[in-house]
C-alpha cells in the first residue's frame, strides 16, 4: 500500500451511525484485516485482492485519497456538533494501514472533529504508536483471554492484542472494551471472569464494557461471495445469555452495555 499514507483502501463510508462511538458518526470501513474471526460479519473487508461477489459490498476498489474522505466527513459537521459525534475508523482493521489512518485522523482533528477507532488491537507497536496520538477514543474487542482458544477462534494468539490494550490504556486514550459473545466458543463463565479480571487489573481506567451478542445477519454476504459460513447454523446469542454475561462482567467495571 502507498507508503506516504495519502491514499488507502476503504470499502465503505456510512453516515448517521450511532452505535460506534458517541453521537452521530460517519464510519470509514477499512479494507484488509490480519485476523480471521469465525463470526466476522464483514467478510468483504478481509482481503485487499479482488473479491468475488456483489459489487455493492465494495464502494471503492482503488485506493481512495485522504482528501476525498475528509471532504465527505466534513459534510456532516453540523450533525457531529449537535450530537457530540464525529468519525470512526472501522473495517476490516484500520491499524493495518497506519500511515493512512493517522493522516485521516489528524486532518479530522484539525477540523475539530472527534475521532474514534474500532480495532481488534492486533497490530505492531509502530502501527499503534503512529495512530494513537490522533485518537480521542478507542473501541477494542477482546475475544478470549486464553491464548490457545484465541488462536482457534481468530487465527492468532492474543498476546499482542492484550499488550496493545495496555499501551492504549496507559497512553490515556479513553477506551471501551467490546466483548463479542459467541455461544459455545467464548462464553463460559470462567472465560468471562478472566476477561473481567484483566480489564479490572490491567485497564482500570476503562469504565465501560459492551457485550455484543453473536448474530448471523452476515450469512448472505458469505454466500454471495462463494464462501462457506464458518459458524454454520449456530443460533444467535439469546437475550437471556447476553444478560447473564453482562451480570458476570458487572463485577469488574462501572458499566456493562448490551449492544453497541
Amino acid at each position, binding site marked *: 500500500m502507498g507508503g506516504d499514507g495519502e491514499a488507502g483502501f476503504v470499502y465503505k463510508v456510512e*453516515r448517521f451511525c450511532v*452505535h460506534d462511538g458517541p453521537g452521530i458518526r460517519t464510519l470509514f470501513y477499512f479494507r484488509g484485516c490480519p485476523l480471521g474471526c469465525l463470526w466476522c460479519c464483514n467478510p468483504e473487508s478481509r482481503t485487499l485482492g479482488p473479491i468475488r461477489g456483489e459489487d455493492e459490498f465494495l464502494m471503492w476498489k482503488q485506493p481512495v485519497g485522504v482528501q476525498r474522505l475528509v471532504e465527505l466527513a466534513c459534510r456532516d459537521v453540523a450533525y457531529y456538533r*449537535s450530537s457530540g459525534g464525529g468519525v470512526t475508523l472501522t473495517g476490516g482493521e484500520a491499524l493495518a494501514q497506519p500511515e493512512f489512518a493517522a493522516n485521516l485522523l489528524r486532518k479530522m482533528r484539525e477540523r475539530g472533529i472527534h475521532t474514534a477507532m474500532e480495532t481488534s488491537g492486533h497490530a505492531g507497536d509502530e502501527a499503534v504508536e503512529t495512530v494513537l496520538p490522533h485518537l480521542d477514543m478507542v473501541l477494542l474487542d477482546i475475544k478470549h483471554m486464553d491464548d490457545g482458544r484465541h488462536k482457534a477462534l481468530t487465527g492468532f494468539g492474543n498476546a499482542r492484542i492484550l499488550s496493545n490494550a495496555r499501551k492504549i490504556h496507559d497512553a490515556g486514550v479513553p477506551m471501551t472494551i467490546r466483548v463479542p459473545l459467541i455461544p459455545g466458543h467464548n462464553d463460559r463463565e470462567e472465560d468471562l471472569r478472566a476477561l473481567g479480571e484483566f480489564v479490572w487489573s490491567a485497564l482500570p481506567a476503562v469504565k465501560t464494557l459492551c457485550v455484543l451478542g453473536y448474530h448471523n445477519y452476515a450469512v448472505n454476504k458469505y454466500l454471495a461471495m462463494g464462501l462457506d459460513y464458518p459458524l454454520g447454523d449456530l443460533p444467535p446469542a439469546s437475550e437471556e445469555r447476553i444478560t447473564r454475561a453482562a451480570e458476570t462482567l458487572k463485577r469488574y467495571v462501572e458499566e456493562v452495555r448490551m449492544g453497541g
Partner: protein
Amino acid sequence: MTESNIRCEPGSARAYKRHVKSFRPTVCLERALLATESYRRTESLEPVLRRAHALRHVLENMTIHIHPGEALAGNQASRPFSAPLFPEYAIQWFENELDSIPNRPIDRFDLPEDARRSMEPVFDYWRGKTLYEKAKAAIPEVYHQAESIKAIFGEHLTNEGDGHLIVDYEMVLRSGLSSVRARAEIARLALDLRDPAQNHKRYFLEAVEIVCGAVESFALRFAVEANRLAEMESDPDRKARLEIMSRNCRRVPMEPARNFTEALQSLWFVQLILQIESNGHSISLGRFDQYLYPYFERDIAAGALTEGEALELVEHFWVKLNTINKIRPWTDTQFLTGYPMFQNVTIGGQVRNGRDAVNTLTHVCLKASEELMLAQPSLSARYHLQSSDEYLTACMRCVKTGIGMPAMFNDEAIIPSLLNHGVDYADAENYGLVGCVEVAVPGKWGYRCNGMSYFNMLKVYELAMNDGVDPATGLRLAPGAGTLAGFGSMSDVWQAWRTQLDWYTRCYIEHDAIVDSALETLLPDPFCSMLVKDCIARGLTIKEGGAVYDVVSAQSIGIANISNAMAAVKKLCFDDKTVSPAEMKLAVDGNFSGPDGERIRRMILESGPKYGNDDDAVDEIAVKLFTDYARVLKQYKNARWGRGPIDCGWQISTSTVTSNVPFGKGIGATTDGRKAGESLAEGCSPVQGTDRSGPTASMNTIAKLPNILISGGQLYNMKFAPAVFADGRGIAAMIALVRAYGMKKGWHVQFNVVNGDTLRDAQKRPEKYRDLVVRVAGYSAYFVDLDVVIQDDIIRRSEHALN
C-alpha cells in the same frame, strides 16, 4: 353561581374518543336544506347579508346534540364525523356523484335515505347560481385547457370556501364576541352612506352584527339543552358537569372567558362555526399553548384545576376536532385523500424577542396527541436554536408513536422568511402554522397563505422538452422553444424550461385571480372576516382586503423529479455524450419500451447520484429551479394588491397533499427514468427510494435549497423504522438531527415512524389496522383510508434505519 371548570376523571376523553370513532362518515343534508331555505327568502339582499342570514338560519335550526361524556358542547352536523353540504359553492357534483359516494374506493360517505329526493329542491334552486358555475363561466377557455392537460389544478378553488387561516382566537377569549359586535356597530355608525364605497362597508358590518346575534342564539341553544339534560340526569357528577356546561354556553363566546374550560368552550364554538359558515378547510388554531396559558396557569395556581384535568380537557378538545368532516367532489378528493381537515395547532417557539415559549401547557398538548393518536389536530412544534432537550425529547416521544406528529418547524428559517414579506418583527415571531406546512400571523393574515392552485411542475418540464406540446393531446398552450431532440446544450434546456414556467405561472395566477373575484362577490364570510384584523376597522371582508397581511401560494409539485431529470440529461447528453438528445427524446416518447428504451432508462438511473444524496451537481439544479421560480413569482401580486394589506404577493410552497398521484397520471415518461403515469415525489423530499445515503445526506440536500424563500411552506418528509426511537441513544440522535437541520435553516421536517412490513401488512389486513395513523404530506390520516397508490407511496419512501 361562580364559574368553575369541568373536572374530568382520567380516561374520560379516551372514552369519548371511542364513542366518536364509532360513527361512520356520513353526509348531513341539514345545512344545505336550511341555507337554501334562507337564500330563497333573501333574493333582494346584498351577498354578504344573504350569507349572514343563511348562517343564522342554520345555527338557529340545525339539530344540536350533546353526547354522554362530552365536556365541550357544539356540533357541526347532525352526527359526529358527518359532512355538511355547502350548495352555494357547488352542488352539481353532488347531484352527479350521489349514487357513487357510498361506494368510492376511498373517502366514502354514507348517505341518508332518500337523499336525492330530499335534495331536489336544493339542486333546483342553485342551478346557475353556484360559485362553481359562475367561476367556470368567467374563466377563459385557455385555463380549462391548462387544467385538462394536468399542468394546473384549480378545481377546488371553484367549489369550496377559502379557509387556510388562523383567526384572532386570543381576542375572542380576552374580549368576547360582544366586543366585536360593539366595534362593528361603532364602525357602521361612523360611515357616510352617501359614498358608495362606504355604503358597501355597511352591508358587511350589518352582517357582522347579524352573525354575532346568531352565534349568541346558537350557544344559548346548547345552554338550554345542557340544562334539560341536567334536569333529567340522576348521576350527580354528570349532572353537575352538565350544569357547568350550560352556564359556560350562556357566557361564551359572547363574553370573555374566565377559566380554562370556558376558554376551550369559547374556542370550540369559534372553530366550529367557522366550519359551518364555510367549507374552507385548514382552519387552524394558532398558538394554542400560548393564548390558553394564562387561563391554565391561573386555574392551577388557584387549585381550580389539576394538570391531569387540564390534559383531559385538551384531549376532549382534540376529540371534538375529529368530529368535523368535509366531503369533496371526486376529482378534488384524489388530491386530498384521507378525510383531511388540516386543523393545525402550533406549540412552542419564541416569544418577546427570542425567549423560549415552551410552558407546561405545551407538554400537555404533546401528551394529548401522544395518548389519543388521532388524525386531528395536526400538531406543529416550533423550535429554535435554544430549544431545550426536554422539549425536543417530548416531541420525539410523540413522534415515536408513529402518528407523524408533531411536525417540526424551524423558527430560524421561518421568522426571516416572514420579515422578507414585510411582516413586523413581533408579528413574525408570533407566527402560527396553517394547514400542512404554511405560515401566517394569527388573526392578521388573509386566506390561503397556501392553498391556491396546484402547479404540476414536472408537467411543465415535459412540455418544455416537447416544444410546448402536450404529448397526450397535442395541445400547445405556451409558445415552444424546441424539443429535446434539437437541443445543443443545457442552456437550451433551461431556456425551454423558463419559457414554459413563465407562461404557466402566469396562467394559474390569472386563473386564481378570476376565481378570487367570483368568491369575493358571491360568498363573503362575515363570521370569519370579523375575527381577522383589520376587517372591521376597514369595513372590508378578508377577500376585499381587510387583513393586515395577505400573501398566498400555490402548491408546486415535482421539483425533485425535475432535478434528477435535468441532471441525467446534462450528464448523458451533454457531458459524457453517451446518449444523444434525440435518442433520449425517443426513449421517453416510447415510455422506455423496447431494448433501447430499457437500456437508456438503466443509464439514466445509474447516471449519478440523485437529488437527496448530498451531491452538489444535482442539488444545485434544484437550488436554481427554486431561485428562478421565486424570481418569477416576485413579479406578481394577488387580488388584494392596493386595497389595504401588506405585501399581497405570491410565494412558493411545496405542500403536495396527495396531488403527486393524480398529477403523475397526467405526465408521460420523463428523463429522470420515471415511467408514464407514475407518481411524483412529494413536497421537496427526494423521489421515493432514491435517497440511499442516509438521513444526514438527505437533509443536507434539503438544507441547500433557498428555504427562506419557500415561505408558503417547504415540505420535507422522512421515514424512520421504529428501532430508531427504541432507546435514548436513538432519540438523542433524532434530536441532534433536528437541531442540525435548524442550524442549516431547514424549514420543516416530519417523521413517519412505521416500518414497511407493518404497512404492507396493513394493506393486506386493514381491519387489523384501523387505528394506524400515518403522515401523508403535511397531515396525518388513517392508513387504511388512503388510496392504495398513496399507501404504496408511503411504503416506498426511504426507510432510514439506525446503523
